[in-house]
C-alpha cells in the first residue's frame, strides 16, 4: 500500500487495520501543508473523502463534511464558524473531521462542538467508541485517536439549543486564524453554555459564567457585565505571534457578552 482510496467504510477500516501507521487524508488543507514543508513524510495514505458514510449530514455530522456544506446549515453557530474558515478554496476542501484530527486550539469548528457537548465517534476494524469532545481533545494538537482508528462522525445530543452564536476575532476578515473565538448557546429555559477557543491548550468551557447566567431568565446590565467578567477570568490564554494573553482574555469576555446578547 502507498495510497488507497476506499469508497466505503469497511474498505477504509480494513486499510487502516492492515497499516495502522497509515496517515488519513481528508481535505488535505492541514496535511498537505505539512507534507509540502517536509514536516510529515507519510509512506501510507488512506484517502477517505470518497467514503460515502463519512459525508453524511443527517442528525450527525460525518467526518468528511466540508466547511462549504456546513456554511449552509443546519446548525447556525457552526455555519457561522464555517463561514470564517480560511477562504472559499479552503472551505471547499477542508472538513470537520480534519479540524478534529489536527486538534488545533484555533480550530474554528471546536467551540460549537464543546458548547453542544458533542461526542466524537471513532471506528476501527476492532471497535466503535464514542468520546465526549473534552475526552477527545487531549492537548494542543493532540487527540485521543488510537492507531488504526478513524474519526467517523460528530454525534450531537438530541436537544439542540435554539439560540446559538459564534464569533471570532482576528486581524482581518478573510483567511485568518483566530486570535480568540467563542460560541454561546442558550436553551429556551435559560440554560447557557459558553465555549472559547484559542484561549487555552484546548477549547474550553467557562462553567462559572454558565452557572451564573443560566440562573438569569432575562439578564440585565449587571448580569451581562458579570458574565463578561467571569468569561475573561475563566480562560487560560497564552501570548504568541498572533496575540497577547491579555488581549485574548479581554476579547473573550467582550465577544461572549455580545454573542449572549444576540441569544436573548
Amino acid at each position, binding site marked *: 500500500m502507498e495510497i488507497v482510496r476506499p469508497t466505503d467504510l469497511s474498505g477504509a477500516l480494513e486499510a487502516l487495520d492492515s497499516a495502522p501507521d497509515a496517515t488519513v*487524508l481528508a481535505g488535505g*488543507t492541514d496535511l*498537505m*501543508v505539512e507534507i509540502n514543508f517536509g514536516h510529515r513524510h507519510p509512506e501510507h*495514505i488512506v*484517502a477517505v*473523502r470518497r467514503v460515502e458514510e463519512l459525508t453524511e449530514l443527517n442528525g450527525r455530522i460525518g467526518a468528511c463534511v466540508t466547511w462549504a456544506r456546513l456554511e449552509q446549515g443546519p446548525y447556525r453557530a457552526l455555519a457561522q464558524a464555517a463561514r470564517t474558515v480560511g*477562504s472559499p*478554496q479552503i472551505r471547499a476542501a477542508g472538513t470537520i473531521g480534519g479540524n478534529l484530527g489536527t486538534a488545533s486550539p484555533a480550530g474554528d469548528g471546536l467551540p460549537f462542538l464543546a458548547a453542544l457537548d458533542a461526542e466524537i465517534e471513532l471506528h476501527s476494524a476492532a471497535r466503535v467508541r464514542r468520546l465526549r469532545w473534552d475526552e477527545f481533545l487531549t492537548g494542543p494538537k493532540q487527540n485521543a485517536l488510537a492507531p488504526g482508528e478513524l474519526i467517523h462522525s460528530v454525534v450531537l445530543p438530541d436537544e439542540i439549543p435554539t439560540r446559538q452564536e459564534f464569533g471570532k476575532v482576528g486581524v482581518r476578515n*478573510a483567511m485568518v486564524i483566530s486570535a480568540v473565538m467563542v460560541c454561546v448557546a442558550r436553551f429556551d429555559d435559560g440554560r447557557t453554555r459558553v465555549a472559547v477557543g484559542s484561549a487555552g491548550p484546548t477549547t474550553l468551557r467557562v462553567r462559572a459564567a454558565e452557572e451564573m447566567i443560566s440562573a438569569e431568565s432575562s439578564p440585565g446590565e449587571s448580569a451581562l457585565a458579570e458574565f463578561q467578567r467571569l468569561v475573561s477570568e475563566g480562560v487560560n490564554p497564552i501570548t504568541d505571534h498572533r496575540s497577547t494573553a491579555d488581549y485574548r482574555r479581554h476579547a473573550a469576555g467582550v465577544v461572549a457578552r455580545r454573542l449572549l446578547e444576540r441569544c436573548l
Partner: protein
Amino acid sequence: MSDVDFTLNGETRSVSVGTTQSLLSLLRDELELPGSKNACEQGECGSCTVLMDGAAVCACLVLAADADGSDITTVEGMASGDVLHAVQDALVAGGGVQCGFCTPGFVVAAAHLFESEPSPDRDQIREALSGNICRCTGYGAILRSLEDLAQR
C-alpha cells in the same frame, strides 16, 4: 508511485505520481501546464487555484494521488482556442493585470463565481476572491473589471 486517471482540461489522462506529490507539482513539473502558479504551497495565496469536480481548490493542497477520478480544469482550460474566457477578457479590458503572477488564480476563482452567479454584486465578488492574493494591483482594477463584466 501510484497510478491515477483523471480528466484534465477535457482530456483523459493516466499518469504515475509520487506518494506525497501535490497536484500543483504534477501539473507544473510533469504535465507541462505552468499556468497554475506556486507562490506559497500552503493554501494562502490562491495562485494555484484550479477547478476540481466543480469546486475551486488550491492545487498545492490536493494530493495528486487523490485526484484520481476527478475532473480538473486549470487556467489553460479556460479559453476556447483563441477565444478568451469572459473573465480573462474583462481583466485585460479593465487593466486587472499587472505582473500577472496572481492572474491565473484570479481567473479560475472568478470564472467559478460567474458560473454559478452571472451577475454577482461587489460583495459576492470580494468574497469569491478572498482566497487570492495580489501584490501589484491593490485589487481595485481587478474588482472593477469583474464588476463591469457582471453588468454586461
